[in-house]
């Protein structure tokens, strides 16, 4: 297989081979960060714009560091400072960015499909850093990379994703990627946040945590956004933690060597207790380390391919 795409928009678009290709590429980029010189000239002379129309610290920092380690030149734009506030359309804004001869746009936007829309209208490459509840491909890739690194495979593993599935781009991207690589995926959480309709894409839905965790090789505890509480999706964070939080007692349902994951930032003692987040099964910080390698790989691939 050879890489030919100029954009990374969603894992839904990619074949299992393409996903594996990104993971394999990321293995080599992970080593770059472990060297004496943590930098390669792969994107030397290229300019990357980080355009975050929705606030982000972790993802933006990870992308920025990945770009620096590839020797790209970087411009950061945030919505507060952009002319979107002055009434310019999104397309006009990105066309103006492209007119400055940039090579790649990394964008986060609250509207699902925003990156696919601009990618169709720009000749430079586009990387999706999160679009609403739709997709967050680099997050899912780093989760899948971490699982593959620890377990040696994806096919046949039981992966349970717990939390606010309906609003989660992390869940959707993980589901698409994991299914394409042959994992068995269960999604679990309060019935308000885990609609049965998800079963139509090939995952098991569950509203009982014990049942969802039984025999799992991997559990990914999604962050609960407190504003969902006021919107009535769950009564209180205390009740959420009581029914859907991962704690010492509930670890017994998982396989003994199961991986505990979280995309961060963690609400300690809500999604999972501190001792589990810091415990031997947790790979939460390794996800962060691997995120850098995945972003280097993705930027290299879409940045180096002929446009």
């Amino acid at each position, binding site marked *: 297989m*050879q890489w*030919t795409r100029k954009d990374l928009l969603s894992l839904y678009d990619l074949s299992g081979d393409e996903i594996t290709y990104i993971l*394999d590429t990321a293995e080599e980029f992970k*080593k770059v960060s472990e060297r004496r010189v943590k930098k*390669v000239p*792969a994107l030397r002379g290229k300019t990357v714009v980080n355009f975050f129309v929705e606030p982000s610290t972790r993802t933006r920092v990870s992308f920025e560091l990945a770009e620096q380690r590839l020797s790209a030149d970087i411009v950061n734009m945030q919505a507060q400072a952009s002319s979107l506030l002055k009434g310019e359309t999104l397309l006009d804004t990105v066309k103006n960015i492209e007119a400055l001869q940039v090579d790649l746009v990394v964008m986060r936007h609250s509207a699902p499909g925003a990156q696919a829309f601009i990618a169709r209208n720009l000749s430079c490459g586009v990387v999706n850093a999160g679009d609403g509840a739709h997709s967050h491909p680099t997050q899912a890739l780093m989760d899948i990379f971490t699982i593959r690194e620890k377990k040696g495979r994806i096919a046949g593993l039981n992966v349970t994703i717990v939390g606010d599935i309906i609003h989660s781009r992390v869940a959707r991207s993980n589901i698409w990627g994991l299914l394409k690589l042959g994992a068995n995926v269960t999604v679990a959480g309060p019935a308000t946040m885990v609609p049965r309709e998800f079963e139509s894409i090939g995952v098991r839905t569950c509203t009982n945590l014990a049942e969802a965790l039984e025999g799992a090789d991997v559990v990914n505890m999604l962050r609960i956004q407190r504003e969902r509480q006021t919107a009535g999706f769950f009564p209180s964070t205390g009740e959420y933690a009581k029914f859907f939080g991962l704690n010492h007692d509930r670890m017994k349902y998982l396989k003994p060597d199961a991986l505990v994951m979280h995309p961060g930032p963690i609400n300690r003692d809500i999604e999972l207790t501190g001792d589990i987040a810091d415990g031997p099964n947790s790979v939460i910080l390794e996800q962060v380390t691997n995120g850098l390698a995945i972003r280097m790989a993705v930027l290299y691939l879409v940045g*180096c391919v002929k446009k």
Partner: protein
Amino acid sequence: MDNIPELLCDEREMNAAVERLAEDIGKVLAPHPGDGALVGIHQQGVPLAERINAVLKEKSGFEPDFGTLDISMYRDDIGNRSRLPLIRETRIPFDVNDKLIILVDDVLSSGRTIRAALDALTDYGRPRLIRLAVLVDRGEPEFPIRADFIGMKFAVPPDHKIQVRFETDPDGSPGIYDIKWPKR
């Protein structure tokens, strides 16, 4: 059909050239036991370096450190290729500082791969010296880069490619071939 590979050198001659390379490399590395290393450049430099290593071990009983290098991240034609091949494993399992390193590639053509390999290798440290060993020298470098150890020399037209095949390669019988290969 002018794209049918033409055999330039058969397996026996090729193996003899590998043995000569190993012998010459052995002479340079022998006075510095423990300081020498072979680094093969992907793709065909790696199996070549493995063969040189095997001959060194068999004939002189010593084994230098061994590494592999992929130069994809250091290429000078970024953005000019519509398909990107998979990056292969770079493995430098020894301290590069103060080493005597023999870079190994199958064919020296433009010299651009070697330029990239020198950048890649020196990002790992500061070797005492780096020498270049190639099985085939085409004698037409675009950069001021020459090999220190040369198995054989072939002059072929610019739109031809010299292909080195080992017995472990899937695409046909071992030997060195000349293929018409228009530059893309």
